């Protein structure tokens, strides 16, 4: 029941929230709830068995038996940290938007809670249709976040975000339906369980563009690549980020992008192993192009937030090449980079938002010399920058190092180009730091005094956990990796005959077809 | 003697004839009232075939169904006439083209 509780308590709490009247009580109660929710996730983590590769805490309830669709959730090493990340961000987001959201507070918090349910649901779903449902539902609250509390061009950005992502997912839906029908010819019973998908042997012809597996592979890849976003499908991201409110950007960059890369890990690699291996070069090079392209474009941005948005394109390129290096180092690095990117880019968006709340401008040229007026803010920004450009002892390094190591094992050329991202990353971030914080005082800085830029307690409370995590994850990565190591190892070693069972059920997939089973432990 | 020569086919043929006349009226006439009359003709053509089928298959189902159709026809005529009256009140004309203003 733990997982269902984690998924649905935000929604239930959201329903209760409707009875509250004052803005303050809404904020306070949501904040308290988000802490409780995080504690619940910690409780889940303490019960998580890191030695097994199997699905834990599984729950399965039949939903549409004729199609083999069920409410099936469970957790393993691939998803455990993403759930933790999602839950970790919620209190920070609530706290971070405390003063910047002034209209429709209740709806805003409902959106946050709805996002929480759908995002965690995506990470925990083990039924393809359920996965798809959560994957798509998560768009709706985000659409409102951008569309209601966004900037000048919010409606365009929200619509673009929604339709772009939705368009990709359609292909995934088609793919899922095809796979469901395939399970029938395979096991005699239709099943939408992802675990049953793993057992499928989908025909693959090397070199052919139209073999079943290749087509399905690209259908799924399209959906996830848009979500990641992978170059050249990234153009929705800068618009969405620039228009979204701080909290929207944080969740979008921090968690939602990871739904795409998680999809690669959960569905694409194990279900289409031959195609993934055959086409890995394509994704390696698209990833590398994304890294370099994102970094170069980020370098010449004039808007701080847009710069950070393009840096996301670059960072997520790393995650993709790590995944398609198809070895343990790359996969581990990718998973780690997902968490690191969530934390450091989330922190960057928070920082940019704090500045924007004060000056209402994100033009880089209007700043300069801010480090004198806002020393603590500058220290925080530089620390997060170091994490973002992967300086050792911060979290970013571990992920990037492992990804590059893995990529080098898969393709030396790709790794050779990917390390250019290390240089360019430093270039655009440090140039940003130089233009905003160093040098003579810019027009927006000179006219204000130190008190104007002073961080409030709430803002410090938002930044502190993120900075602690940056160092914790950088110095003791084993504390985190050890939970996922077994699963990732299993995925990289046994990709072509990948199989997952539910803990305590030796032959999971066979039992799964027995849909009348209410709940399994 | 003559009655014995009337078969199902005759009835259906008549029904088709009436239906076609009604449909033609609906498609080409501009006056709403006339169009409504066309619709009535079509409905009654269907009624005729219902009744004929019922009669020739020795079943009451057809007759039963025709009552439903009549009820619906009455309701439909009521709504249609009400609309026609509304249109007339607004435009002082009862031209079917006037309904195009509802499109946007």
């Amino acid at each position, binding site marked *: 029941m733990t997982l269902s509780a984690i998924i649905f308590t935000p929604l239930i709490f959201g329903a209760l929230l409707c009875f509250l009247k004052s803005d303050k009580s809404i904020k306070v109660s949501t904040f308290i709830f988000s802490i409780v929710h995080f504690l619940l996730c910690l409780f889940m983590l303490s019960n998580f068995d890191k030695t097994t590769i199997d699905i834990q805490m599984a729950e399965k309830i039949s939903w549409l038996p004729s199609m083999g669709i069920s409410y099936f959730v469970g957790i393993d090493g691939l998803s455990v940290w993403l759930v933790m990340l999602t839950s970790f961000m919620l209190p920070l987001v609530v706290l971070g938007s405390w003063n910047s959201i002034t209209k429709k507070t209740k709806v805003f918090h409902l959106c946050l809670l709805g996002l929480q349910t759908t995002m965690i649901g995506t990470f925990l779903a083990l039924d393809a249709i359920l996965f798809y449902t959560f994957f798509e539902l998560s768009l709706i609250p985000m659409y409102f976040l951008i569309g209601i509390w966004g900037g000048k061009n919010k409606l365009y950005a929200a619509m673009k975000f929604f339709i772009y992502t939705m368009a990709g997912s359609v292909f995934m839906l088609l793919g899922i339906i095809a796979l469901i029908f395939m399970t029938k010819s395979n096991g005699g019973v239709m099943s939408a369980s992802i675990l049953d998908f793993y057992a499928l042997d989908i025909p693959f012809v090397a070199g052919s563009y139209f073999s079943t597996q290749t087509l399905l592979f690209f259908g799924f890849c399209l959906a996830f690549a848009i979500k990641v976003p992978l170059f050249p499908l990234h153009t929705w991201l800068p618009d969405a980020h620039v228009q979204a409110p701080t909290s929207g950007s944080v969740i979008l960059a921090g968690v939602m992008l990871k739904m795409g890369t998680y999809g690669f890990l959960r569905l694409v690699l194990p279900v289409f192993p031959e195609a993934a291996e055959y086409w890995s070069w394509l994704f390696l090079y698209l990833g590398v192009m994304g890294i370099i392209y994102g970094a170069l474009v980020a370098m010449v941005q004039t808007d701080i937030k847009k710069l950070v948005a393009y840096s996301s394109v670059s960072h997520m390129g790393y995650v993709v090449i790590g995944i398609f290096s198809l070895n343990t180092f790359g996969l581990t690095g990718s998973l780690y980079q997902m968490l690191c990117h969530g934390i450091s880019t989330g922190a960057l968006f928070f920082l940019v938002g704090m500045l924007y709340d004060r000056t209402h401008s994100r033009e880089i040229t209007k700043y300069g010399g801010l480090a004198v007026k806002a020393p603590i803010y500058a220290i925080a920004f530089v620390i997060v920058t170091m994490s973002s450009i992967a300086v050792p002892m911060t979290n970013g390094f571990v992920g990037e190092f492992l990804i590059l*190591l893995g990529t080098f094992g898969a393709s030396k050329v790709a790794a050779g180009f990917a390390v250019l991202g290390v240089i360019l990353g430093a270039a655009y971030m440090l140039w940003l730091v130089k233009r905003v914080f160093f040098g003579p005082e810019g027009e927006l800085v000179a006219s204000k005094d130190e008190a104007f830029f002073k961080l409030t307690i709430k803002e410090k409370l938002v930044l502190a956990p993120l900075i602690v995590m940056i160092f914790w994850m950088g110095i003791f990565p084993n504390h985190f990796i050890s939970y996922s190591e077994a699963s990732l190892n299993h995925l990289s070693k046994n990709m072509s005959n990948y199989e997952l069972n539910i803990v305590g059920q030796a032959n999971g997939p066979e039992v799964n077809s027995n849909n009348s089973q209410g709940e399994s432990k | 003697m003559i009655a014995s020569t009337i078969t199902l086919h005759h009835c259906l043929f008549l029904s088709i004839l009436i239906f076609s006349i009604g449909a033609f009226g609906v*498609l080409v006439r501009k006056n709403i009232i006339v169009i409504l009359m066309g619709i009535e003709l079509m409905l009654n053509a269907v009624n005729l075939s219902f009744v004929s089928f019922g009669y020739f298959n020795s079943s009451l189902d057809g007759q039963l169904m025709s009552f439903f159709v009549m009820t619906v026809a009455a309701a439909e005529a009521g709504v249609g006439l009400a609309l026609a009256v509304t249109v007339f009140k607004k435009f002082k004309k009862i031209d079917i083209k006037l309904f195009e203003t509802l499109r946007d």
Partner: protein
Amino acid sequence: MEKTLLSILLLTPVIGFLINGIRFRSKNIKVAGSIGTGAALISFICSVALFFKVKAAPDHMVLVKFFDWINIGSLNIAAEFLVDPISSIMILIITGVGTLIHLFSIGYMDHDERPAKYFSYLNFFLFNMLVLVLASSLPLMFVGWEGVGLCSYLLIGFWFTDKEKAAAGMKAFITNRIGDAGFLLGMFMLFYTFGTLSFGELNEMMPAIPEIGWAGPVTLACLFLFIGATGKSAQIPLYVWLPDAMAGPTPVSALIHAATMVTAGIYMIVRMSPVFMVAPNVMMVIATIGGLTAVLAAAVGLTQWDIKKVLAYSTVSQLGYMFLAVGTGAFIPGFFHLMTHAFFKALMFLGAGSIIHAMHHEQDMRKMGGLKKKMPITYWTFMFGWLAIIGMPPFAGFFSKDEILWLAWASPLGSKWLWALGMIGAAMTAFYMTRLMCLVFWGEETRSDHKVKESGLTMTFPLMVLGFLSATAGFLGIPHVISAVLPGHPPNILGDWLGHTVVHLDIHGSAITEWLLMGWSVTVAGASALLAYYCYIKKITFVDKFTEQFKPLHQLVEKKYLVDELYQAKIITPLIGVSKILWSDIDVSFVDKCTHLLSRFAVSCGKGFRSFQNGNMQTYAFYMLLGSAVTLFYIMTGMGK
């Protein structure tokens, strides 16, 4: 016991960093300086203790593991520190010189706004540098490697309100990053070839036969690692950041950009000497780059007027010597020079700092002069540094530099050409350093308008200690030929100590040649120094004539070969231009346009279907009828079956 010592060694700078970092607003330099210097001193004491521990250890090695850092499959990176002959010397240099420079800073930074911040950065640098040299594996070394780069960035840009200083810090970091990218690739290459990244295992696993050609894995790995070294140790083509790094406070230049951080590249190669020995081609590249850097940087040093710029180019040139040494397989002399250079260059930078402080931040040598009488301690200690760097016996530089030149000549990996490069560099070094002495200390007083006083004890004491070391450190590595004629045949202490872990080439050259070369190089250096003396004190017109004769060349050298301009014009500007095109023409006008085209296609499809929906009831009715007719036809003709 070792673990405790190591923990204290590493953690005291961190604690100092944290304490000073938290109270970064404090303006009290006494407190901040005491904390910083105290932390450095405690580290130094631990280093000394560790040195004796290592000396007493049977295999001269202390390996302490703190925790596992990254542990995945076959990749095991532990936070494991190795104290062996090389690193034990390094930690002594770092913490020893570091402590002196901390002490010096108390005097130097006395008017600064943010002394606590300054000392916290310095302490953090010490920690990172210690991690770099104590690391037992390449990735852990990389932690320190990037960490010192970060500190260098922060300290160069310490006075960040000045745009150019902030830019210099950024330039240093990014240039270093280019090297770091190479370092990463080299590391991956070694990992996939040998399956490990720990120095001990790598050095043991090296094949006995050197690789021929360029495509061997070890050759490639070494080449990439060397790219890393050129970044950190300011060699061609990545040396451009070091002269700019002089924007930082002068003690920082002494500590980071002369004595310790910039030698990390040499340290890394010495540490992995068995690996580099397998790649003779890379060794050749290293020696050539080193030799070229030594000469070209020295030539720029001849033309500069800013005292710190002269010293900066001198550092680049001396680092070139060290690479020349390690490239010819002379790892121990290279390391020896690293050590002596750390003493005399730190000394000279601190001396320069003392002058700059006294002159109220005036760095132009033309505005100095005649400081001999006004700043006697600075003068005399600086003199020791000068004698050491131009290689006068028996000062420290003489022993290390002549060892390098001799091995460049005699080593199987060396050549006469490399020796010649070294000689030219040595002659130039003697000239520009003497020029500096003339302009700053000996010439006429050019500024009598304000009172220039000798600095206080916190600044002169470090000078004295370093002056003593510059004079005597050479005796730690007396070459064989010299010790043969000295009474009691003193051993080559450093060579024997390092020989435990570093590859040692046996050179069989004739002693007479070695003596001749030694005499020759001392003569050349002496003559060159004398020439400079006559040019700048006796005012013979040689320099003017010379520059007149070779005007274009002189200007090219004076403008630093226009390398910065070249990089700006050929790399940075095009890159930014390309990025702008990528953004406006590709991203917005093409990629995003494609998306819009797709959406417009959907819209036009919709428009097409919209014409069916014209609002005319009769048309609708017609479609309905048509539809039912088609359906009926379809059913009745049995086509559905």
